[in-house]
């Protein structure tokens, strides 16, 4: 992993978040949520700052980050795409939808497209089983997605890109 240097501003932000939770080690997960919300991901350097602020070992912080699937150490695409792999979605063909996304984006689960626009992940049941199969792009929920709809969904987010290129 390439070493990155955190901007002073970022370090300050992390410190503030830790302080909000009284620098309590027991609040580690809340802190990680907040920091990831602000920064998008939790690179090693960020975890080191958090560990220091909460007076916890970096190994512990890393152990927690790698335990929970919600936390990520890699920057996500501009539009993170998550395919629900809950049972309802599975029996209604989520796998085919996933395969189609992989094919069209040319990336595997856990990867980000070369242009940084899309990242692909699977998640477990978002509780919208009535709409199975379900796909999330950012926080937007798409229901009853068929493999045929995949290109349309991707296109929705590529418009900006296309116009930017033509401009």
């Amino acid at each position, binding site marked *: 992993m390439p070493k990155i240097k955190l901007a002073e501003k970022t370090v300050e932000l992390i410190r503030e978040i830790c302080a909000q939770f009284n620098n*309590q*080690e*027991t*609040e*580690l*997960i*809340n802190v*990680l*949520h907040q920091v990831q919300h602000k920064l998008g991901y939790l690179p090693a350097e960020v975890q080191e700052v958090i560990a220091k602020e909460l007076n916890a070992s970096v190994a*512990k912080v890393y*152990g*927690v980050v790698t*335990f*929970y*699937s*919600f*936390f990520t150490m890699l920057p996500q695409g501009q539009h993170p795409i998550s395919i629900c*792999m*809950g*049972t*309802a*979605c*599975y*029996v*209604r063909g989520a796998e*085919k939808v996933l*395969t189609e996304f992989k094919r069209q984006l040319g990336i595997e689960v856990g990867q980000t497209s070369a242009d940084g626009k899309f990242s692909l992940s699977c*998640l*477990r*049941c*978002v*509780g*919208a*089983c*009535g709409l*199975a199969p379900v796909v999330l792009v950012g*926080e937007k929920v798409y229901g009853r997605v068929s*493999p045929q709809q995949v290109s349309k969904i991707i296109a929705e987010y590529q418009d900006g890109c296309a116009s930017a290129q033509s401009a």
Partner: protein
Amino acid sequence: MTAYNTHILVCGGTGCKASESELIKLNFKNQLAELGLDDDVQVIHTGCFGFCEKGPIVKIQPDNTFYVTVRPEDTKEIIEEHLIKGRKVERLLYKNPKTQEQVTESKNMDFYKKQVRVALRNCGFINPENIEEYIGNDGYSALGKCLEEYSPEETIQVIKDSGLRGRGGGGFPTGLKWEITRKVQADQKYVVCNADEGDPGAFMDRSILEGDPHSVIEAMAICGYCIGASKGLVYIRAEYPLAIQRLKTALAQAREYGLLGENVLGSGFGFEIEIRYGAGAFVCGEETALIHSMEGKRGEPTFKPPFPSESGYMGKPTNVNNVETFANIPPIINKGAAWFSSIGTEKSKGTKVFALAGKINNVGLIEVPMGTTLREVIYDIGGGIKDGKKFKAVQTGGPSGGCLTTAFLDTPIDYDNLLAAGSMMGSGGMIVMDEDDCMVSIAKFYLEFTLDESCGKCTPCRIGNKRLHEILVKITEGKGTREDIDKLRMLSQVIKDTSLCGLGQTSPNPVLSTLDNFLHEYEAHVDSKKCPAGQCKALMQYVIDDEKCTGCTLCFRNCPVGAISGEKRSPHYIDQTLCIKCGVCFEKCKFDAIKIV
């Protein structure tokens, strides 16, 4: 302003549509037009009446007459007799199976309504972001009643008498849990609401928190009063942003109205609730893992005892209940233990919310009394199987549960019956599968889930489930042997017997229950290398039917690996050694010429 005097409501549910309800509607329309009544009588389609076994259903408004098993040829009689002469068509009325009496009015037809909404009583009725609507519907009166009229012991007794059992899956008696926590001496205790709904296919907790967050807040306060806790924590999935937002709003309103905080309703009792977020770990539904997660640690379970009621959050006595359990508390207090225990079966009282999903027409959230049969749930409430396919199995209990076959359709649903049938209640996901679902693949799917979600602490769950999954992969790839089937069984038994927590102890259930109920499917994969459902890619082939192929070249042009060859306007051919079984040709072919064998 009324244009129509009368409405004819024709059920447009999928089941009824299959039995020609479209034609019934059309007949009504045409015949009314012929009689020139189409300005007075309007015919409309409705959604499912939830009484599919007696479909198609026709209801006449405004006199609420309810006709069952209506045939397209009956429309004339209904118009002539009922609408014109005002006489009900008796032979089409529903007969009460007990009394054999004909039921004319639908308001006397309530017994066909299989659902009773207790936990969901306010969902879809009140505005969840307006506390006054909750209060207007008896909200917080149970808390008030407890604080003013009942001692903690008396309140616990009501809960115990009601027979309420934990709705998170285990089914532990709620009142007893409260009593145990109450009896432990400590300077601080905690009430925890487990809202880490993780079972794939279950979304009742989300719905309750989104639709009726105050009922959970009220119940937690009651629990706090009973066990002697002044602090509550809701552990909620971070994947539920709307539920979180509604809960936050509700908490703020409850504080504003003095229903949380110090000295609630002038009783001297104080209670506060904080939110803690899950971070994507299914195992955190297990209460010890949940507590560790709330303490900022890896969500690994620890051996019980000590139970959280003795040593839980921060080492203090902690009572953990799930969302649905809490949502049942206020009506129990308000309407009494006797009322609640009158619903359900001998050992499982009250109702259970199920999330119906999968290959079923009326996907949705339902709440039925304990003891309702699977058949009632699937066919009456759920409207039967999608696209007229054959029912194969219903999976209950999520990754900890099992697949139940037609043989269990008439089994009354309660904790003990499901357990005896090789499944479990779980949190209430019910996923319906049809003939197209391969049960070996389903078992593999659940194992994959467990593998992903296992915390890795104990050997049987960490390595055993990996090996189970590997064997299942082998079988679905057509490389399995009879010995592998035996290994699945033996290893499953050891994993159940030796795992540390509930996740591991129940993880082989999907394998065992499919082995028990669908052994022939395993055998087909192993012996004849065939997947009866046509799901397992390695065991199927796409072939082109020479008779049907027109040589349009569409498949040839779409095949991503160039496995298809053939001259234009003559039958094409798929080279099986190149085919990756992506299914594109199958989807593209306009002539049904591509078959799966």
